[in-house]
């Protein structure tokens, strides 16, 4: 959430005085305590016409083609530089819908809380959810809260699902990519993963790396207005990073991908942190980032338009779709050598020296 929004939220929505300061198993029982938890502010913070009905589900009016997506969020630690699990939970599903070419509209929100979570922490997560919803212009219309015993969770897990109408000009499909398509990444890579890593591993970096979590729906919508069907495919390279997404696309198509290491945008600090820990930024997770496969005829203009937008100012053209080496991603290294880019066998493990 933007800092301005954060301060406004905290002023507008101070946590009410409660007779409990941690969440206990009873708060997930469905009885009085659950209602107490929800009434103390959850419904107020997220209030809208749909949610306020407090029915078992939401009644929605929708027409035309829709996109529907779901995602579960487990982030440790739940608070990190640049955000918390709440905004990731909203932005994650919003962005999954946005890269389908949809304008996200309604979300569901489910919490699995580990008993002992401080109410102040839960409140901060709720404020982040509300702020992220406002910024993305989506509503939480239904939800659920469960509490698990201490040791059976990791503070809080969140699931969100969402629906949104497909943009009238959008035609996003892996089958649309063709030889010559240019591959454009909307900003610096590896930022979110290194932000989490820098605090999770207890490393003392001189400065903080802030996560890039943000919504992408408005940015993508503007690009779709302008470039419509010339945008062949959109993807958000979250877990597994840019390399994994590109390899998945190559494998499921009949084309190959050429990638240029020198064009990969990366923040200097993030790049240094990756070097230090022996991690390849191509495989590090991103949050507020998308990859576009666009028709070569509009690629330069698309890149210019994207660079004009706030969330695309670091955008770069990083690769091309080719007929040679089908199903393989080949990276041209910074010194001009070539190597294949594969998926990782598991999580990236930091090297010894």
């Amino acid at each position: 959430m933007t800092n301005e929004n954060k301060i406004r939220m905290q002023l507008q929505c101070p946590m009410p005085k409660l007779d409990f300061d941690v969440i206990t198993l009873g708060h997930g029982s469905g009885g009085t305590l659950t209602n107490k938890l929800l009434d103390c502010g959850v419904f107020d913070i997220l209030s809208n016409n749909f949610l306020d009905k407090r029915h078992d589900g939401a009644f929605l009016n929708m027409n035309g083609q829709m996109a529907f997506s779901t995602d579960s969020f487990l982030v440790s630690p739940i608070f990190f530089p640049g955000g918390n699990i709440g905004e990731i939970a909203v932005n994650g599903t919003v962005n999954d819908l946005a890269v389908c070419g949809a304008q996200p509209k309604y979300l569901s929100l489910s919490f699995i809380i580990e008993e002992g979570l401080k109410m102040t922490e839960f409140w901060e997560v709720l404020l982040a959810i509300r702020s992220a919803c406002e910024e993305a212009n989506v509503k939480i219309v239904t939800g659920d809260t469960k509490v698990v015993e201490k040791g059976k969770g990791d503070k809080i897990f969140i699931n969100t699902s969402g629906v949104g109408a497909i943009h009238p000009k959008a035609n996003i499909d892996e089958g649309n990519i063709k030889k010559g398509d240019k591959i454009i990444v909307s900003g610096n890579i590896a930022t979110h993963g290194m932000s989490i890593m820098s605090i999770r591993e207890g490393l003392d970096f001189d400065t903080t790396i802030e996560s890039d979590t943000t919504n992408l729906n408005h940015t993508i919508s503007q690009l779709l207005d302008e470039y419509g069907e010339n945008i062949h495919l959109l993807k958000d390279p979250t877990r597994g990073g840019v390399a994994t997404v590109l390899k998945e696309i190559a494998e499921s198509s009949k084309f190959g991908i050429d990638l240029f290491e020198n064009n990969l945008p990366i923040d200097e600090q993030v790049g240094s942190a990756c070097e230090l820990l022996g991690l390849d930024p191509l495989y590090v997770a991103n949050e507020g980032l998308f990859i576009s496969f666009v028709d070569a005829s509009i690629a330069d203009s698309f890149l210019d338009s994207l660079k004009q937008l706030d969330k695309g100012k670091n955008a770069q053209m990083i690769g091309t779709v080719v007929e040679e080496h089908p199903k393989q991603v080949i990276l041209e290294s910074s010194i001009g050598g070539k190597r294949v880019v594969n998926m990782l066998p598991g999580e990236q493990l930091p090297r010894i020296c």
Partner: protein
Amino acid sequence: MKYMKEYRDPQLAKKYLDEIKRTVTQDWTIMEVCGGQTHSLVKNGIIEMLPEQITMIHGPGCPVCVTPLNLIDKAIHLALDKNVILCSFGDMLRVPGSRMNLLEAKAKGADIRVLYSPLEAVKIAEENPEQDVVFFAVGFETTAPANALSVIHAHRKGLSNYSILASHVLVPPAMKAVINDEENQIDGFLAAGHVCTIMGNAEYYPLSEQHGVPIVVTGFEPLDVLQGILMVLRQLEADKTGVENQYSRIVKEEGNTEAQKMIFEVFEVKDQMWRGIGEIPDSGFALKDKYQAFDATKKYNVEIEEAPEHPDCISGQIMKGIKKPYECSQFGKKCKPTNPLGAPMVSSEGACAAYYHFSGLAEK
């Protein structure tokens, strides 16, 4: 961080490559000793850019690859003990033991923590006085000072719940063993820059002189490796042998004397088992008598039966440079990073994993 771009400059790389092509007149075989150099060669596509006359052979300088199987089994055994917190560097976790690896032990409930520094392990020991903390102290001369320092700190603080399971290996004796191998075809070496940062260059002069091989202390960035290759090549083509320092921006002739003091306060040189290679005389570190209380193998007296290596794994021949990863019958077939039969398929610095991951050979 400095030098992120300077040593990856494509124009300079081309100049070095052109110079290498101009200099070479016959076939030469050069071993890069360190896994970090192997990683750089393969990751940057350098092997394919070199002229055909130059064959690069990937040396034994991958610490996780040469850690004895038996010691990994011991680490797993200790980690599965309910009262032990086992701390390790990240890339040890996927190395196959005889029955499972540390990641699988973690899934079975072992408390295993990935750390970047052994000093964090000392902190964990202080914070958990009821539990025993064991640091899996693996590595070359490079990690020895920090591991030694952790023992010094624990000793000073009087911690009785901290110990290290040490598998320290030393580079110069391994180079000697590789040279003395009957099947060895190596004409020159790129020595491991980081190891020399700590230990200096002194040990390489007798090695170069006695065995008549050029040795160039080399860094890890693409331009470092290219320059190192050119320097070895110039010696070979001029029929000279000597020790040169390509990595002089980091490596001082005498090394880091403070770090050496720390190492020899805590450790003494001993014979050491190398996985896939066998025992090499004077090639490892053991804790000195004064610090015996911090030696996990003695403290816990874990006896684990020696298990055989996978019969199809030829990692020893690969680490001695006798075979290339793709010459192994199981490379990319039964043996993949998701199911490694031997350690070089695990770490990104292991020759097999580097080839599998970056060269696409497995897919051909």
